[in-house]
């Protein structure tokens, strides 16, 4: 076992070792998230110039674009964790996958919601059947499917493995769905507006957006670790270390 312990990520794949590590990391990422959000929003709202075409309404992209990116990125990471959990039977990996789903779903929802708010002044409609909007909506459905399957199964072990499998099936299908929707859209596209933003962005806009992306990253890591800690406590409640931990705290 000494060999295994020498590899650090195998050491932390045990929930018992991961739990304190996550506890130490959460404050770091949480503070970073708050600081970056404040800086990013400050630049976004006070430094970045008003867009000559869209006016001030474009400023929602500082939330919208990072949220959309995160929602896609989290799904891929979630599916990777799910895959690792399925293949190598690593419990911690399954727990991480299920800890990520609610955050990813939330970002997908935020991306859709802010997109609708941005679309009304810009395109004149809250919703258009654009390829990006449609595939983001489908991504939200995939997240919801993952979470519903997990909560429908009582046995936590089976729940984790079943939802892991649907995450992997989903990630194989995501590119197919994305390109299908894109081609469908180009086939049907009438004289509606294109959602692609002006290619040139002021430096302050880009800075603000990138800082917000990092802020959302830090937020996601902090929240996922928190949720993972709760899942560990719940699923490992029969082990002695959890029982000792809980009774000592009281």
């Amino acid at each position, binding site marked *: 076992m000494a060999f295994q312990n020498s590899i650090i990520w195998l050491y932390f794949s045990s929930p018992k070792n991961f739990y304190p590590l996550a506890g130490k990391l959460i404050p770091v990422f949480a503070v970073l998230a708050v600081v970056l959000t404040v800086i990013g929003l400050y630049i976004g709202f006070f430094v970045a110039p008003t867009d000559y075409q869209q006016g001030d309404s474009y400023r929602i992209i500082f939330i919208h674009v990072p949220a959309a990116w995160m929602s896609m990125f989290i799904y891929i990471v979630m599916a990777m964790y799910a895959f690792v959990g*399925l293949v190598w039977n690593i419990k911690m990996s399954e727990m991480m996958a299920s800890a990520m789903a609610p955050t990813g779903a939330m970002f997908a929802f935020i991306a859709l919601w802010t997109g609708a708010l941005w679309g009304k002044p810009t395109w004149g409609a809250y919703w258009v059947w654009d390829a990006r909007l449609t595939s983001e909506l*489908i991504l939200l*459905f*995939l997240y*919801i*499917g993952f979470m*519903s*399957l997990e909560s*429908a*199964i009582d046995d936590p*072990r*089976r729940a984790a*493995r*079943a939802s892991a*499998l*649907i995450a*992997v*099936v*989903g990630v*194989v*299908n995501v590119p*197919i*769905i994305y390109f*299908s*929707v894109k*081609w*469908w859209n180009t*086939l049907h596209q009438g004289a509606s507006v294109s959602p692609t933003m002006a290619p040139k962005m002021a430096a302050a806009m880009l800075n603000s957006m990138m800082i917000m992306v990092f802020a959302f990253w830090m937020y996601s890591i902090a929240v996922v670790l928190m949720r993972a800690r709760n899942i560990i406590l719940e699923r490992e409640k029969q082990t002695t270390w959890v029982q000792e931990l809980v009774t000592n705290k009281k």
Partner: protein
Amino acid sequence: MTEPSLITACRSMLARDLVLAMRRRADVLTTLIFFLIVVSLFPLGVGPEIDILREIAPGVIWVAALLASMLSLGRLFSDDYQDGTLEQILLLPHPLAIIVLNKVVAHWLVSGLPLVIFSPLLGMQLGLNAESIGILMVTLILGTPVLSLLGSVGAALTVGLRGGGVLVSLLVLPLYIPVLIFGAGAVESAAAGLGVEAHMSLLGAFLAMSMVMAPWATAAALRISLD
């Protein structure tokens, strides 16, 4: 006693599933009648103008086929699960994915094929011309097996769950979207006088890919569900 070969196992599996379906003909008919009713509801909701109906016909027929095939997924594994057959199937000395593929083929023969056969009738009701109806049938022949294959993953994951029927729709309907887009799209572009080769090729690609990957995922899902 010698073990039956893989070929024998597959053949008897297929025969068994077909015989079971024939003994319970009402189940097969329910799916078909559901399909017919859903399509017939659209003119009542949208109005009887044949031009509008002709325009929406490919989408309506395809969505109805999607729903009908999803509705029939519940039967794919649940009966076998309840009487214990599914556990015996998992114990077979043959690759589970191939056995699963047989079950899916049997399922498609009793739930997908009738939809293909009756689709011209609905196409005529909605005012499609002969050429479009032909295209519609080909897309359904290519597309409905994909629905059964993708659906089998969802059915295997939800086997034995309370409320599995609603859950399975949540799991598989997003995965059905590409088939819907290109199935209905082929008929539409045929009606518009455009080529349908691209749509057909993509549907064929979906079929080939899901035939290779879905049984494998379904087998894994069954092992998880009956762990």
